[in-house]
């Protein structure tokens, strides 16, 4: 498959050529102008917080004004003008004047599609509190694919004044894209600033919009939307090798491991050697591996493989991976594992003693392709729309007929029952989706020898999951990821998607409100649970049983958007879990 490696290199080369092909503007030398400006200043330790900084949060801040315009001092009001005061946006609004929340009820939609709930109580907040709230709101709201934010400060006079009663309303504006059948009509929710829980002062009305609700303490938790308190860690992986033992890798500047031994009731933090890690694996509650390098990212630091036999309390360095770094590593038992270096023609290694001694094996594909072993003998690799399997631990790989066009590695619940998803079955490289090219869920009952279509989904069907693949009409691309079956009936998948054609200004994409879909009948029917997962998020799913699962969501370079969710009822309700205080 060396042609394949070559084509990747050519792909990279073409991209570099594209970069050189871009006609960049020729700008005059800015050195003298920069020098003139810095001569007047001196390096400062901290950035100045000024009125301009408030402006960053202008959109959100503006709505605070709506709720609390009278409470904020006149000088603050000047900097926090509502952004829609410039033009008439909603019924009953007079151009140039702020909209009063009382003028819009939940049954009315503004021209722009804003949905507002009932009149918000008059708030009594200081400017400092308002700014603080806005900052916190931004942190919280970054968990969501939220397209627009309206904020109201709900304030009650209690013995503990002010902040604990802040809550905010989040709405998405309606537009043609959001009326996509797979996209909810409107998102409205209130979030308690302190707990991160969703609170709704008018449960019934919102219940009509958003489906069923669940009573909890004073407020109501909405199953469709999940709020998690801001995290200081990025959670890049979650694993539950047993029902009780769970592990989460969190990274700030260095990585730590969060460990539970009581099914998630309590978590403890364990440090890891050498600073920064992006891969770990436990095969049971005590034996695990970790790849780690120094946190200094300058210039290719070497990484090492570590092993623990006490659940991450102590780690022993067992292997030097080198500067190149491993691309994929997997263990199927306390002894048997494989490690593939990154890059074209990169070697692949195998160990039979838990990672101390490795020997090179020759696989017919490079690290651009994904592979996975079901057990010490049975392995799968997805190579550009062709599925390869091995039945002897990777010595011989053979193409698996009938799985052409399948990109996702299959998931096995046991030795015989397996599932995978495909688009354009039988068409290498996929096909242009239309009615004759549905995405399909494939099932095997004989350990992968034969596969049959269990379920298929076209774009407008209510299949319980979005159709997998790209280039659907309207510019939508969907993906189904990490199918996981805990037994022959219960399965979980992550879904998401984006729209590249109808893009907001600035070139970003619209995203499908991603989430998790579940089945309890072996894949015949699916139930979609939207969790507002952005397409940029890397979600890691750990299934414990047919009812219970954990989801760790990380977002490229944005620790504050990383969170962990837990469900005990087949994905209907998700609770944010706090592992780090």
């Amino acid at each position, binding site marked *: 498959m060396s042609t*394949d490696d070559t*084509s990747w290199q*050519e792909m*990279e080369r*073409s991209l570099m*050529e*594209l*970069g050189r*092909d*871009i*006609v960049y*503007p020729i*700008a*005059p030398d*800015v*050195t003298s102008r*920069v020098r003139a400006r*810095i*001569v007047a*200043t*001196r*390096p*400062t330790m901290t950035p100045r917080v000024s009125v301009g900084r408030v*402006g*960053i949060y202008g959109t959100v801040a503006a709505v605070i004004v709506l709720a609390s315009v009278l409470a904020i001092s006149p000088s603050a009001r000047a900097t926090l003008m509502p952004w*829609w005061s*410039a*033009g008439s946006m909603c019924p009953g609004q007079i151009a140039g004047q702020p909209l009063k929340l009382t003028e819009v009820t939940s049954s009315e939609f503004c021209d*722009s599609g804003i949905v507002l709930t009932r009149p918000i109580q008059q708030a009594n907040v200081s400017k400092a509190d308002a700014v603080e709230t806005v900052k916190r709101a931004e942190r919280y*709201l*970054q968990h969501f694919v*939220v*397209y*627009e*934010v309206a904020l109201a400060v709900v304030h009650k006079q209690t013995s503990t004044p002010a902040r604990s009663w802040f809550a905010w309303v989040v709405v998405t504006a309606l537009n043609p894209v*959001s009326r996509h059948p797979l996209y909810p009509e409107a998102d409205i929710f209130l979030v308690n600033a302190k707990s991160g829980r969703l609170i709704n002062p008018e449960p019934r009305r919102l219940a009509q919009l958003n489906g069923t609700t669940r009573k909890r303490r004073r407020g109501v938790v909405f199953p469709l939307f999940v709020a998690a308190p801001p995290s200081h860690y990025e959670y890049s992986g979650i694993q539950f090798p047993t029902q009780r033992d769970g592990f989460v890798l969190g990274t700030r500047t260095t990585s730590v491991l969060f460990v539970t031994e009581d099914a998630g009731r309590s978590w403890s933090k364990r440090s890891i050697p050498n600073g920064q890690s*992006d*891969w770990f694996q436990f095969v049971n509650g005590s034996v695990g591996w970790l790849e780690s390098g120094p946190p*200094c990212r*300058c*210039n*290719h630091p070497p990484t090492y493989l570590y092993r623990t036999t006490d659940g991450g309390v102590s780690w022993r360095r067992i292997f030097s991976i080198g500067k190149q*770094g*491993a*691309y994929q590593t997997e263990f199927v038992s306390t002894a048997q594992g494989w490690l593939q270096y*990154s890059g074209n023609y990169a070697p692949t290694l195998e160990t039979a003693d838990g990672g101390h001694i490795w020997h090179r094996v020759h696989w017919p594909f490079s690290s*651009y392709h994904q592979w996975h072993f079901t057990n010490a003998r049975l392995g799968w690799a997805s190579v*550009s729309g062709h599925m390869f399997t091995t039945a002897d631990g990777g010595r011989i790989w053979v193409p698996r007929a009938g799985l052409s066009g399948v*990109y996702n590695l299959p998931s096995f619940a046991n030795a015989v029952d397996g599932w995978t998803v495909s688009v354009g079955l039988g068409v290498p490289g996929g096909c242009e989706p239309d009615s004759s090219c549905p995405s399909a869920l494939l099932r095997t009952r004989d350990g992968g020898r034969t596969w049959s279509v269990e379920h298929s989904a076209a774009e407008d069907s209510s299949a319980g999951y979005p159709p997998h693949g*790209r280039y659907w009409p309207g510019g939508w691309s969907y993906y189904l990821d990490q199918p996981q079956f805990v037994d022959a009936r219960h399965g979980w998948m992550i879904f998401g998607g984006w729209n*590249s054609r109808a893009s*907001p*200004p*600035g*070139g*970003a994409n619209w995203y499908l409100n991603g989430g998790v879909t579940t089945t309890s009948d072996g894949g015949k029917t699916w139930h979609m649970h939207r969790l507002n997962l952005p397409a*940029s998020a890397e979600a890691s799913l750990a299934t414990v049983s047919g009812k219970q699962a954990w989801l760790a969501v990380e*977002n*490229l370079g944005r620790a504050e*958007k990383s969170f962990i969710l837990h469900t005990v009822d087949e994905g209907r309700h998700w609770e944010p879990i706090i592992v780090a205080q």
Partner: protein
Amino acid sequence: VRGADLDGKSLVERARQGDTDAYADLVREHQKVALRVAYLVTGDSSEAEDVIQEAFVKAYQTLSRFRPGNDFRPWLIRIVTNEAKSRQLSTRRRGLREATWGRRSLTGGAILTPENLVLASERHRYLLAALRQLPSEDQTIIAYRYLLELDEAEVAEVLGRPRGTVKSRLSRALRRLRDSLTDQQIEVLGIGALE
């Protein structure tokens, strides 16, 4: 390049001690890449020029927070990107106020605004179009790595992520891009057929 880095580090050290000549040298050395980054984000040459001026001033003011021993270039690129993005945001907000009030992604969006880019030849038009179809995070990482030709360690530094993550994100982005090209387009680009 590494030799220049060593030199760059000593320039940073001198600039940190208040040597404006040293900082001017740094500006001269890095303004080209800074401008490219700013242009990719803003898609406007005068805006990009403003951005880099502002970014260089901000970088100077926060030099005390620069960790000695690290590369200056990725650190600068991060500042430039942030500056350009926040400008984009405020420009967008201004525009929206005047036109229809649309939805704004709080997640920031891509650094790449390819619709504004002008290509010297037609050969890579399809590739650019395909790049546009990708999720914005994929566009961003490809832009840093290939269009701006940063190495993986620099991309990791700019994004503030471990290198392994950058590597896997990059290969995922490449795979998506490859999947989105038709066979004909691949032929035009001279990329070998897969199997």
